[in-house]
C-alpha cells in the first residue's frame, strides 16, 4: 500500500498549480512581458474594478487548494492572506462563509443593466487599416496568407456542400458563413496540442489543422473512407489525429466535458489547453452553467469560446438572454472574460493567443465572447428569411464580411493580389467538385461496421445478430440496399 500512496502523491503533485502559493498573493495583473503590444491590455485590466475580483477569486481558489473547505471551519477565524489595510474600518467588515464583506447601511440594488455595455476589442477598421492606437499581435506574411486562404476555402466549401444538399446528394449541411474569421483566426492562434471540443460551426479548425476537402466530403457522404464509418450525420466531423473531438448534436454538453478533458490534460503537463465552443443559444443550457462553474472551481485549463452570432435558429439574442451578452457571465463564475469583434481576424487572433497563454500559465478557465452574425441559415433544414429581414442578411454578408476586411489588410501589405484571389477560388472550387464526385462514388462502409464499436469488443448477441442478418440478406438479396458491401 505504501508504494501506491507515494504514486498517488506524485499525481497530486502534477496537479498542483504551477504557481507557488506566494506568487498567488501578488498576482493582481497577469504579466504579459513577452510582447510590449499587450501593455495597453494589461494596463486596462489593472485599472478596471474587475481586477480586484480577479484577486479575490484567486485568493478563494488558493484557499481551497491549501486548506480544508470552509464548511469544516465554520466557527474558526479563517486565516486570510491579504492585509487588513484593504478595509478602511475594521468595524465595517463582516465574516461570512465565502469570505469577508464590508457592509453598508444603505440599501442599494445592483442594476440589471449597466449604462455602458462591455466594449468589444477590435483592431481592423472596415477599410482594412488598423485602427489608430490599436494593439495587436503581429501576424507574419506566411500565417496571414494561410489564414486568408483558409477563410476563402471554408467559405467556398460551405457554399458548394450547401448546394450539394439542395441537389439531394447529401442529406444535411450546416454552414459557417459569416464566422470564417472566428474559425480560422482561432485555429491559427492555437497549437495542434490544444484539444478542441466543438459545437458544430467550427469546421475551420479542422481545415486549418490539415483535414482535407476529401476528408470533409467523405464524412458528409458517410462512405467507407469516413473516419466516422458512416455513423453520424453530415458535418459531425471528428478526428483524433487532429485533436478534434467528434461533434455531438446535443447543445452545450461539451462544456462540462471540456472541464473533464482539461482535468485529464493537466496530468499530461503539456503546454496545451482545452478549447470548448458554444453559440449564444448554448449559453441557455444547464450544461453552460455547470461547465463554467465547475471549470472555475476545479481550476481547469479550459478556453471557453462563445460565438455570439445573434441567432439560435429563429431565436434572436433578445429572446435568449437579458444580460449584456455572454461576456458578463464570466465574472459571475469567477472567470476572466473578454469581448472581441468576431469578424476581425486580427483581433480574434490576438485575443485567442493571449487567452490561451493565460489559461495555460495560470491553469484556470477564460471566456471569450466573439460577436458576429450568422449569415447563412441555421442549417439546410432552415429558411431564415422566414424570421429575419433579407436586407439584414445581405448587409452582414457584404458590408460586414470578415473576408473582405481581412483581404484588404493582406492586400495592403502587398501579400495578396487579385490574381491570387481568382486563382485560389478557381482551384478550391475544382478540388471540391472533384472531392464530391470521388466521395459519391466511394463505397459505403461494409456490413460488419454496422455492429462494431457499440462496445469495445463485439458482444455475443451482436455477433449472432450479424450472422442472422447475413443469412437473411443471402436469402432475400433484393430487399436490401445494393451499395452496402457485405
Amino acid at each position, binding site marked *: 500500500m505504501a508504494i501506491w500512496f507515494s504514486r498517488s502523491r506524485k499525481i497530486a503533485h502534477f496537479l498542483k498549480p504551477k504557481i507557488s502559493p506566494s506568487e498567488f498573493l501578488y498576482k493582481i495583473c497577469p504579466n504579459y512581458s513577452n510582447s510590449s503590444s499587450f501593455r495597453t491590455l494589461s494596463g486596462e485590466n489593472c485599472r478596471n474594478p474587475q481586477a480586484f475580483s480577479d484577486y479575490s477569486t484567486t485568493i478563494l481558489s488558493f484557499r481551497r487548494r491549501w486548506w480544508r473547505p470552509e464548511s469544516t471551519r465554520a466557527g474558526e477565524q479563517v486565516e486570510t492572506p491579504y492585509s487588513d489595510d484593504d478595509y478602511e474600518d475594521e468595524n465595517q467588515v463582516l465574516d461570512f462563509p465565502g469570505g469577508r464583506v464590508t457592509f453598508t447601511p444603505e440599501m442599494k440594488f445592483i442594476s440589471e443593466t449597466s449604462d455602458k455595455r462591455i466594449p468589444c476589442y477590435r483592431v481592423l477598421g472596415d477599410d482594412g487599416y488598423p485602427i489608430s492606437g490599436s494593439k495587436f499581435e503581429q501576424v507574419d506574411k506566411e500565417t496571414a496568407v494561410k489564414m486568408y486562404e483558409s477563410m476563402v476555402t471554408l467559405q467556398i466549401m460551405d457554399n458548394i456542400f450547401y448546394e450539394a444538399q439542395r441537389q439531394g446528394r447529401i442529406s444535411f449541411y450546416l454552414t459557417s458563413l459569416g464566422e470564417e474569421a472566428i474559425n480560422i483566426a482561432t485555429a491559427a492562434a492555437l497549437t495542434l496540442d490544444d484539444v478542441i471540443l466543438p459545437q458544430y460551426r467550427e469546421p475551420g479548425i479542422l481545415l486549418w489543422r490539415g483535414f482535407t476537402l476529401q476528408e470533409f466530403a467523405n464524412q458528409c457522404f458517410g462512405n467507407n473512407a469516413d473516419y466516422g464509418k458512416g455513423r453520424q450525420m453530415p458535418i459531425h466531423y471528428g478526428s483524433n489525429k487532429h485533436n478534434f473531438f467528434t461533434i*455531438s448534436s446535443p447543445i452545450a*454538453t461539451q462544456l*462540462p466535458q471540456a472541464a473533464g478533458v482539461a482535468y485529464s490534460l493537466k496530468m499530461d503537463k503539456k503546454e496545451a489547453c482545452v478549447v470548448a465552443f458554444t453559440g449564444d443559444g448554448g449559453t441557455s443550457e*444547464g450544461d453552460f452553467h455547470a461547465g463554467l462553474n465547475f471549470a472555475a472551481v476545479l481550476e481547469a485549463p479550459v478556453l471557453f469560446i462563445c460565438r455570439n452570432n445573434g441567432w439560435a435558429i429563429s431565436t434572436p439574442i433578445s429572446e435568449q438572454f437579458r444580460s449584456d451578452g455572454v461576456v458578463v457571465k464570466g465574472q459571475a463564475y469567477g472567470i476572466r472574460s473578454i469581448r472581441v469583434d468576431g469578424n476581425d481576424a486580427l483581433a480574434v487572433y490576438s485575443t485567442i493567443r493571449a487567452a490561451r497563454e493565460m489559461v495555460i500559465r495560470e491553469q484556470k478557465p477564460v471566456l471569450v465572447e466573439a460577436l458576429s452574425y450568422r449569415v447563412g441559415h441555421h442549417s439546410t433544414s432552415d429558411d431564415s428569411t422566414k424570421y429575419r429581414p433579407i436586407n439584414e442578411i445581405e448587409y452582414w454578408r457584404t458590408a460586414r464580411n470578415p473576408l473582405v476586411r481581412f483581404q484588404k489588410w493582406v492586400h495592403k501589405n502587398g501579400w495578396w493580389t487579385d490574381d491570387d484571389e481568382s486563382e485560389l477560388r478557381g482551384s478550391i472550387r475544382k478540388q471540391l467538385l472533384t472531392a464530391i464526385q470521388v466521395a459519391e462514388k466511394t463505397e459505403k462502409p461494409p456490413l460488419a*461496421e454496422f455492429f462494431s464499436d457499440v462496445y469495445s469488443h463485439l458482444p455475443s*448477441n451482436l455477433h449472432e445478430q450479424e450472422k442472422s442478418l447475413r443469412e437473411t440478406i443471402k436469402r432475400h438479396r433484393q430487399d436490401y440496399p445494393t451499395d452496402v458491401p457485405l
Partner: protein
Amino acid sequence: MLRIIKQRLAYNGLPAPTLEQGIRVIASRAYSTAKEMTVREALNSAIDEEMSADPKVFIMGEEVGEYQGAYKISKGLLDKYGPERVLDTPITEAGFAGIGVGAAYYGLRPVIEFMTFNFSMQAIDHIINSAAKSNYMSAGQISVPIVFRGPNGAAAGVGAQHSHCYAAWYSSCPGLKVLAPYSSEDARGLLKAAIRDPDPVVFLENELLYGESFPVSAEALDSSFCLPIGKAKIEREGKDVTITAFSKMVGYALQAAEILAKEGINAEVINLRSIRPLDRSTINASVRKTNRLVTIEEGFPQHGVGAEICASILEESFEYLDAPVERIAGADVPMPYAANLERMAVPQIEDIVRAAKRACYKSSLLAATA
C-alpha cells in the same frame, strides 16, 4: 511462504504470474473460514483496490470526499488518495457527469457517484447521448471507460422521487452495460469488473443492502478478483420453477424458495447480476429444465426487465413452457410515502410464493390477483 514456493517452482521454468494465481487458489482452498463483509465494505474495498492498482481511476460525486460518502461507500478514500482523486462536487449532476465523460474521453477512468439514480435523470443526456453512444458514433475514436454508480430503486419511506428503479431505462440503451449486484461478493466482483471495463457501465446498487452482511470466500477477497459481466448466477438450484431476480429481490426470492420447499415446490433462483447484457442462455436453460418461470423486479411493470425476459423465453423456449410466465413487479403507481402503502407498492415474499404456486398450478384460488 508463497514466495519460497514461487522461487522453487520458478527453477523448473514455470511462468510466475499464472503460478501465483494457482498458488493463491490452492491457498484459498486451505483457508475455508467464511469471512463476513457488508455490501458497503465490499464496495469500499473494491473502489480502494482499483484506485490503488490504476492511478487513472478517480471518484467524483456529491459528498464522496469530506463527508465520506452519502452512504459511506467512499469512506477513508479522501484521506488515502487525496482531493485530486476523490472529488467533492457542486450540486450539478449534469456538471459532474459531463466532466466525468470528458475525463473518460481523454484517458482517465472516472467512477461517478449519483446520490441516488433518481438524480441521474438530471444527467441522463450525458449518460445516454455522450457516454453510451460516443464509441459507436466516433467509430471507436472516443472510448468512454466510465462507471456511474449509486443506490437504485426503493429504499424505505422516501417517496416517489427517491424510489424509482432505473434498471429497465438504462438497459434499453445499446452501448451501456448495466449491472445489479446482490451479495457482497457480487458487489466486489462486479464493481471491479465495471471499473476495469473499457465501456460505460451503469452500476445499480441498493441502499437497503448496504448494511447487509454476506459471507465472502478468500478468493473474493483477493485484489485481482473479478466477476464476468453478462453471466447470471444460479443462487439455488431447483427443478420445479425458475425464479429470476436482481438486487434486493434475490434475497426475497431465496426466502420465498425456502417457503416453497416446505410445500414441495423446488424453486431455482437465478441472480441476474447483469441486466445488460442479459444472460439469456442461463435463463433459457433453466426454464427448459423447469418449464415454469416467475420474474421478479421492484421497478414498474411496463417495459420492465421482466417484460424483456418474457420476450426472450417466448422467442427461444416457447415449447418448453408448461404455464404462462408470472411477472411480479412494483405497483404501477409512483411510490407512495406512507409505510402501509409503500409495503403494498413493492413485491413482498408472499407475492413471490403465490406467483410460484400459480405457475405450478398449486394455488387454491385461481384468481389472477392472489
